[in-house]
């Protein structure tokens, strides 16, 4: 099968149907592993592993990194790292079959490529801080903790959406 670069990409699927599918994936994680989904944990664990490669003492001096390093098999065999590799593979498979694989930088019509790349990096680093403080992100807290009715996860979700709505009017130009 060839990548349909020139053909129009297929439209996205019904969000409720996909949501039910995603819920079943999350449920499968509970049933198979006894834990939920995640994303930011893979970043934290690989940051711990990378720091330890450069300076083991420096990595051990961070209680956050030390926690990942002392895990069974070390920081690089964290379950979420394999899960997130799977996420990338699954995303590529789905996009490929739907003709949606293409190189681009998504941005608003009045926003330059460079600015968008800069705001993506900036937004990512701010989220990094937030995810460490909250012990997870939209996957590990909002989805997983949300479904397990964890109070802290619901607080995270409420805080994240409230802040995003407050900030959105100031970054309108990036998107609209």
């Amino acid at each position, binding site marked *: 099968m060839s990548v349909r670069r020139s053909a129009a990409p297929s439209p996205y699927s019904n969000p409720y149907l996909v949501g039910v599918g995603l819920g079943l994936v999350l449920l499968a994680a509970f049933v*198979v592993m006894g834990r939920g989904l995640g994303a930011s944990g893979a970043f934290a664990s690989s940051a711990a592993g990378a720091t330890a490669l450069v300076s083991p003492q420096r990595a051990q001096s961070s209680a956050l990194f030390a926690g990942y390093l002392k895990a069974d098999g070390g920081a690089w065999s964290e379950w979420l790292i394999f899960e997130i590799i799977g996420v*990338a593979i699954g*995303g590529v498979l789905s*996009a490929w079959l739907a003709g949606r694989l293409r190189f681009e930088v998504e941005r*608003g019509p009045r926003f330059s490529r460079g600015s968008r790349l800069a705001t993506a990096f900036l937004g990512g680093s701010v989220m*990094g801080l937030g995810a460490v403080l909250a012990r997870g*992100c939209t996957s590990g807290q909002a989805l997983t903790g949300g479904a397990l009715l964890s109070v802290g996860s619901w607080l995270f979700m409420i805080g994240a959406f409230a*802040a995003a709505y407050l900030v959105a009017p100031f970054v309108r130009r990036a998107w609209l």
Partner: protein
Amino acid sequence: MIAPLFEFAAFGRHGAIYAALAIGVAFGWCLERAGMGSARKLAGQFYLTDLTVFKVMFSAIVTAMLGAFWLGRIGVLDLSRVYVPETFILPQLVGGLVFGVGFAVGGLCPGTSCVAAATGRGDGMMLLGGMFSGVLITGLAFSKLEHFYASTSRGAFTLPQLLHVPYGVAVALVVCVALVGFRGAEFVEARMAARTSR
């Protein structure tokens, strides 16, 4: 009780890696199918033009919540062996607020940025890099945050405990909130579409 399978030693560490890959592939597939690898589509959530994020997230939460509840009720899944993210009131509230600022600016979250990057989006790749740097810097400066990070700890603290209601009642409440939310989301989207076409 036969599940969680890993907790009852149905397979070992190698099996867990295959499970991680398989679950990840299905997770990434779902995110891409819904269009959640697209930053502009996600950002529509914050301008009320496209509420896909809300619809996908809440359908997923409700599905997994009902599944876990009923599998526990019929004795298949031992819920006491499913890890519930522990609650730390202030760090999670503040972390959520900080995260939300980054989400509005960056347009993708950590999981969706992996899909965006893998499917060719340069902004997704930059966000991945930013996320890694943010976590790295926070980790290196962690001694300054450690005290706050561990504060207001409540352990595994759930909505039924907070509201003093049985588990099933809390589940039913979340279902009701989601159903009202879905109706609201459809209404808001229709209103916004009508406004822009006028």
